[in-house]
């Protein structure tokens, strides 16, 4: 395998969790809910996936554990913001703080253990295609899931009636309510989906990216996923492009360190964060296009009139 392919493979590994988490958050935000707790749900997913894998020996059970735990954790956010109409920004932060704490506690006995890496699933024949084969058809299950997710989310949001209803809830919850759509239930489901995706992305960290548990291993990537949704102006395909761009940035930083370019490693490590800021500036400086793209009810609580 050539060096280019090797680098592209690492880019894909770095981009996959970002794409998954950002797609989940995109659906949540399209329903009008801003869940800033992605980082917390991700880290819970990472720790539960790792612990389940260590306990059962099967990384596939780990994937399920990560996804389910992320979804359950997001339910806490849903209950506070949807049922008790608490402030979404503050509750999202609470979710992140709690997630970092709980994951640290659950994972402590497991830190330092080396885990089982999620095995590759090789598609016969297809994986022999030069260049593309090893990149696209010799990957782990989570990568394939991310690809399915891209098409599924796009199809669901823009080609199905339920997707249309979800978007209408995000754009004007009172009109949607007047039309007889159950706003709260729609939002609960969207939040759950976002949580499941964040949990799955977390599972990728502890099963594929670095198969072990270290505290705070998500290292702000939940926040980068949030930024990706803004970057993508709430469109699934742009999330994919953005996710792979960010994957490339964070990988180029690792390779630059390996080649010993004379820049201090801390500056290179800061690159993904600075890139996020730069991208946010470019995307949002035009107030009007931002307004057009943002779901109009984003971040606003809804209490049905009775």
């Amino acid at each position, binding site marked *: 395998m050539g060096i280019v392919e090797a680098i592209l493979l690492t880019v894909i590994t770095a981009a996959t969790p970002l794409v998954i988490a950002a797609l989940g958050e995109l659906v949540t935000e399209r329903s009008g809910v801003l869940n800033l707790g992605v980082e917390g749900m991700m880290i819970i997913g990472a720790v539960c996936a790792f612990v389940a894998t260590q306990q059962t020996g099967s990384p596939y059970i780990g994937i399920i554990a990560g996804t389910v735990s992320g979804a359950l954790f997001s339910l806490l956010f849903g209950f506070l913001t949807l049922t008790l109409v608490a402030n979404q920004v503050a509750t999202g932060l609470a979710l992140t703080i709690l997630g970092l704490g709980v994951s640290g506690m659950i994972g*402590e006995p497991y830190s330092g253990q080396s885990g089982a890496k999620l095995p590759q699933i090789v598609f016969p024949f297809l994986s022999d295609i030069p260049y593309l084969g090893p990149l696209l058809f010799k990957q782990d299950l989570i990568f394939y899931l991310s690809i399915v997710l891209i098409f599924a989310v796009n199809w669901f949001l823009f080609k199905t009636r339920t997707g249309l209803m979800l978007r209408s809830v995000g754009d004007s919850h009172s009109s949607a309510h007047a039309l007889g759509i159950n706003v709260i239930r729609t939002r609960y489901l969207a939040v759950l989906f976002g949580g499941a995706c964040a949990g799955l992305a977390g599972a990728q960290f502890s099963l594929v990216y670095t198969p072990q548990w270290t505290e705070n291993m998500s290292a702000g990537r939940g926040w980068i996923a949030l930024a990706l949704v803004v970057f993508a102006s709430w469109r699934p395909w742009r999330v994919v492009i953005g996710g792979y761009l960010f994957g490339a940035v964070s990988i180029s930083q690792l390779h630059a360190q390996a080649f010993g370019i004379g820049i201090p490693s801390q500056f290179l490590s800061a690159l993904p964060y600075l890139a996020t800021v730069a991208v946010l500036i470019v995307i949002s400086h035009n107030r009007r296009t931002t307004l057009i793209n943002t779901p109009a009810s984003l971040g606003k609580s809804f209490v049905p009139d009775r």
Partner: protein
Amino acid sequence: MRIELEKRPKVSVLFSIFSPFIALALTLIAGAIMFFLLGKDPGYALYSFFIEPLTEVWSLHELAIKAGPLILIAVGLSVCYRSNNWNIGAEGQFIMGAIAGSILPVVFYEWQSPLVLPLMLLLGMLGGALFAGIPAFLKAHLNTNEILTSLMLVYVAQLFLDWLVRGPWRNPGGLNFPETRTFAADAILPEMVASGRAHWGFAFAIIAAVLIWLMMRFTLKGFEITVLGQSERAGRFAGFSSRKMIWFSMLLSGALAGLAGISEVSGAIQQLRPVISPGYGFTAIIVAFLGRLNPLGIVASGLVLALTYLGGEAAQLSLGVSDKVTRVFQGLLLFFVLSCDTLIHYKIRMVWADLTDTVKDGGAN
């Protein structure tokens, strides 16, 4: 079963006073359950977490040392949050304040003068304010979301500090440890009272809380903050500028976080290290909400959250549970605070399955 909210005709005064206490009580109950599940005696665990640290003089000093930065940062954040500016990067502003203030004792260490300390404090505030100025500028003039930018800059500040203490600012006589030279006597924030370690940072926090409380209560600026926070449109009609408010609240909270940073470094650590904060900037967000965004309430809640740090250390020693328990307690507390705040504006009713609602729901789908 379903939970229904009914808007109160008037904000409930009773609950706006008691909601933080209900939240604390619920956190204690949840904590007791958690300790029970971990196989510890809940009563003894809560005692050693929340009471034991208060029984000795030295630990009261530790409480003041930890409460100082929490209160200072949270008071600044309360102004931001009240005006609807979501600065969540106080951790980074804390670090940059500490770095800016340390220029004198680390780079110009030969200069000894009584002026060193006041200048350090000023530089600390300046460093924090400038760093908060970045998300402020981006939000006010380029319409960029301040939540994400201020948070991203936390990581940048942490890495910058890491580079400084391992690289150019490393103590030349320090056996290659990643730390700067220790500060000279002139650069150290003195202790408040002779009985222990607590330094003047705690006094700064109390002074800042009182000043901001007076500002919110008695000045036009305080009114402007509240109006713009509740309705930007109403604020515009009153002639207030939301752009100026972004700058004001962010710079103020950045300066206070910077002051907290340099006070911590100069008073408690007395040199720079790769990590100088156990997450004060994030915990201060909880402090601000538990204090109901009221500066005097924040003084009380800052002491409570400082206690969770001490309790975590104590519980690690006496119970053998992980100090991660602290973070769990802090997260739980914020959750309960936010849910109890609902009681201020709404009555909560449990609705057991009833026929008319089922019909209505059925019709909706």
